[in-house]
């Protein structure tokens, strides 16, 4: 574990992706098979094995309690330190310096600590274990021991890079490791197999979410050079999900790789009738009268803690399948789309709540325009185009799929609060809460943190620091002066904001230095957009 920490520090110190991978690979090469498995697991999937079932849960309060005990610092000092550092593992590593016995920690021993933390039921027990770790081992090792728990290493190492390092360290083609990882999702086992040359024996493993293939946004339909070479489907505004089925056992994963089976009992029930084993890719939608309802409606159902028969009747859902990734022992990702489609159509009965998305063929850009309008008229977002003969590329946005949609709308809003970011943005105010006009006041309608350049964020940070009116921990309230233009995908009801509404997927388009807060949109406009979204297609 000490060497793992040292390797991570080295990775953090390189900005080049190739150097990072090379540094990690040379660390991997030094490890025995069993330690390689442990190190890869810690870096790629976290403290415990991927298929352990129950989630590993050690929260920030537990970590805080343990570090306060060991370091002896009062909570306010520790909190200030965390605010300056922006990462739990790093803060803890810094605060326990001089308080630990600096013993060596092996990967095997770290694995045992993680297992004990995983099994511990009571918080006090977890705090006790963490105290032991924090007072016994080296500060740098403790830093990464905690980072593996919190799940964000912040050393500029994406999971794909661990995959590449495994390939490099074992002398295996990256593509082979990638495919195996997509089949089983267990990179630790794959690393061991790659070293032994038994990668081909890694079998597809159901009930772990695989990466989704993503569509590239198409600016304009007319940009498409060869309209006659694409399968055309509607783009739905629901929850992208993957359904895994094995003779009656069903699990549904959303794109955030979360399991959502319990929220959709009628889908799980219907899927039980699918024969054999299969993995479907598709969309969960609120559905009535043979058409999809707005996402805001589906949202109302997800918001419920318990899915009662009443809510199932009030807001029925369907799963519209559009791809088949696995069938009865065979991964299908490298099989052309036409074959996957044929297999998909035989796997489902095409009866609600399980549907198969319709495909059309276009002869010209005009046809595609027409399909787009049709899709919008059906209440869908737009189109997804899938290239003839294309394979399924998990986790990629390769351009074999293209999506055409229209943003729901844009608004001019004013920033009312700015929050410190995390990691590399820990020292700037990068997350902005914004508002629209309501009478003489401003009421918040959302929060966004993407879309501006680092330069703009730095400049805005300076402005917000000088226009601060109050501060609560990481959040700085500011005088409403800075106007942003935001795009969003819809409006939903929200108890979080005083306005009663929240924008969906707001993203900052630009900083409107030419506009003053008086030029912002008002709450009436937001309300009208919400009412319109309930009424039907825009």
């Amino acid at each position, binding site marked *: 574990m000490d060497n793992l920490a040292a390797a991570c520090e080295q990775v*953090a*110190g*390189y*900005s080049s992706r190739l150097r990072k991978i090379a540094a990690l690979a040379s660390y991997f090469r030094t490890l025995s098979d069993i330690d390689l498995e442990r190190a890869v697991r810690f870096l790629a999937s976290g403290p415990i094995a991927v298929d352990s079932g129950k989630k590993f849960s050690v929260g920030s309060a537990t970590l805080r309690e343990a570090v306060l005990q060991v*370091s002896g*610092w*009062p909570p*306010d*000092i520790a909190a*200030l*330190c965390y605010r*300056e*550092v*922006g*990462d739990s593992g*790093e*803060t803890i590593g*810094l*605060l326990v*310096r001089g308080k630990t016995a600096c013993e060596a920690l092996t990967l095997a021993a770290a694995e045992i600590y993680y297992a004990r933390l995983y099994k511990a039921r009571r918080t006090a027990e977890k705090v006790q274990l963490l105290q032991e770790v924090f007072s016994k081992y080296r500060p740098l090792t403790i830093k990464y021991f905690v980072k593996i728990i919190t799940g964000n290493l*912040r050393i500029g190492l994406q999971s794909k890079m661990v995959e590449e390092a495994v390939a490099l360290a074992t002398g295996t083609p990256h593509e082979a490791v990638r495919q195996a990882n997509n089949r089983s999702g267990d990179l630790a086992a794959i690393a061991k197999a790659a070293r032994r040359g038994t990668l081909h024996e890694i079998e597809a493993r159901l009930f772990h979410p695989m990466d989704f293939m993503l569509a590239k946004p198409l600016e304009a339909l007319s940009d498409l050079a060869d309209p006659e070479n694409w399968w055309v489907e509607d783009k739905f505004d629901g929850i992208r999900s993957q359904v895994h089925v094995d003779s009656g056992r069903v699990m549904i994963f959303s794109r955030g790789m979360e399991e959502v089976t319990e929220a959709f009992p009628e889908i799980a029930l219907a899927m039980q009738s699918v024969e054999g084993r299969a993995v479907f890719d598709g969309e969960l939608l609120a559905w009535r009268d043979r058409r999809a309802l707005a996402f805001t409606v589906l949202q109302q159902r997800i918001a419920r803690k318990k899915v009662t028969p009443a809510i199932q009747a009030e807001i029925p859902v369907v799963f519209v399948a559009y791809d088949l990734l696995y069938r009865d022992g065979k991964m299908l990702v490298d099989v052309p789309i036409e074959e996957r489609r044929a297999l998909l159509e035989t796997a489902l009965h095409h009866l609600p709540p399980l549907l198969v998305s319709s495909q059309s063929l276009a002869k010209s850009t005009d046809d595609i325009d027409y399909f787009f309008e049709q899709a919008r008229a059906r209440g869908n977002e737009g189109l997804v185009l899938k290239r003839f003969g294309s394979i399924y590329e998990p986790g990629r946005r390769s351009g074999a799929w293209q999506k055409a949609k229209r943003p729901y709308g844009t608004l001019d809003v004013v920033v009312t609060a700015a929050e410190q970011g995390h*990691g*590399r*943005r*820990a*020292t*700037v105010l990068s997350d902005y809460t914004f508002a629209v006009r309501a009478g003489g006041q401003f009421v918040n309608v959302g929060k966004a943190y993407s879309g501006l350049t680092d330069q703009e964020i*730095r400049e805005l*940070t300076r402005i917000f620091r000088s226009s601060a009116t109050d501060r609560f921990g990481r959040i700085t309230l500011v005088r409403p002066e800075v106007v942003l233009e935001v795009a969003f995908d819809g409006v939903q009801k929200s108890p979080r904001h005083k306005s009663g509404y929240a924008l969906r997927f707001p993203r900052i388009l630009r900083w409107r230095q030419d506009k003053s807060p008086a030029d912002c949109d008002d709450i009436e406009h937001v309300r009208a957009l919400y009412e319109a979204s309930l009424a039907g297609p825009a």
Partner: protein
Amino acid sequence: MQIDFTAQGIHLPEIDLWLDAQQTCANSWISHGHSDHARGMHCRVIGTSATLRIYRLRWPADNDTPQELQSLDYGQSMDFHGARLTAYPASHIVGAAQLLVEWRGERIVYTGDIKLRPPICGSSTEVIPCHRLIIESTFGLPIYRFLGREEACQRIASFAAASLAEGSTPVFIGYPLGRGQEIVFALCQAGIPVAVHGSIARMIPVYEAAGYAFPGWVPYAAKDTAGKALVVVPNFRATLEASGRNTRSAYVSGWAALDNARARAGAEELIPYSDHADFDELLAIVQQSGATEVAVVHGYTEAFANILNARGVRASAPRALAARAEEELPGA
């Protein structure tokens, strides 16, 4: 003795002496040459010879404003309005000094910016026994611990050598006065060719006058960087990167003790070395001074004062010296 902490600086009214006055005043002690301490056209300026030289470079004489510059070098004393003033080394930048004010049996020490361990360039600090201590706390949190001089020099030289060996240009981000010259000094001593950016180069003579040799450095020229380490001010790093050269940057600073300095400074290599005391050094200075009352005037003042109070030293965080530090974080 009465001490007033104001936004204009620290004032000792009984002897009408300001400590690092922020605005033009009658009499000011200047602890060192950084622009947040040495500023204003005071009638009478007291400081070490090196500090006065830096002050004069940055605040040139003005015929309409007659000024008296009075040097008070390490170990020297003078009588001033009934008090006795003595300067002691503060090992911050060249010329930096602490001031001991003795008045009616009371000993008050103003540290200015200070570190305890010997710096790469500059004199070693003596801790002055006193009753009351006025100290900074730029790095007054336990997360800040820095390298010693030897280790810092070794890290600077080895990063430069490794980068040059693989064909990259090592770029060191320093500050115009202090860190910049220390990095150049470390590189020169290690025999690594170095090109120095304008505002850092401008202050090298001040260090040479203080007895430090900088063999072989050249002024930075955009066309002639091959085989050289560059020492530049923070804002210039972006310019270098935009030029498309194969550069690797190192940030030598107290802020480099935290990983987020990588993103802030845009550097790969973090070398946590400062001309300020780290947390342990600050505690040691307070403890060794024997002061029973401490005023914390810069940085994490409230937090550090709380930490001292918890250790039984009466400490407060008066609001004063609100000006921005010269060692400003890039991007902050």
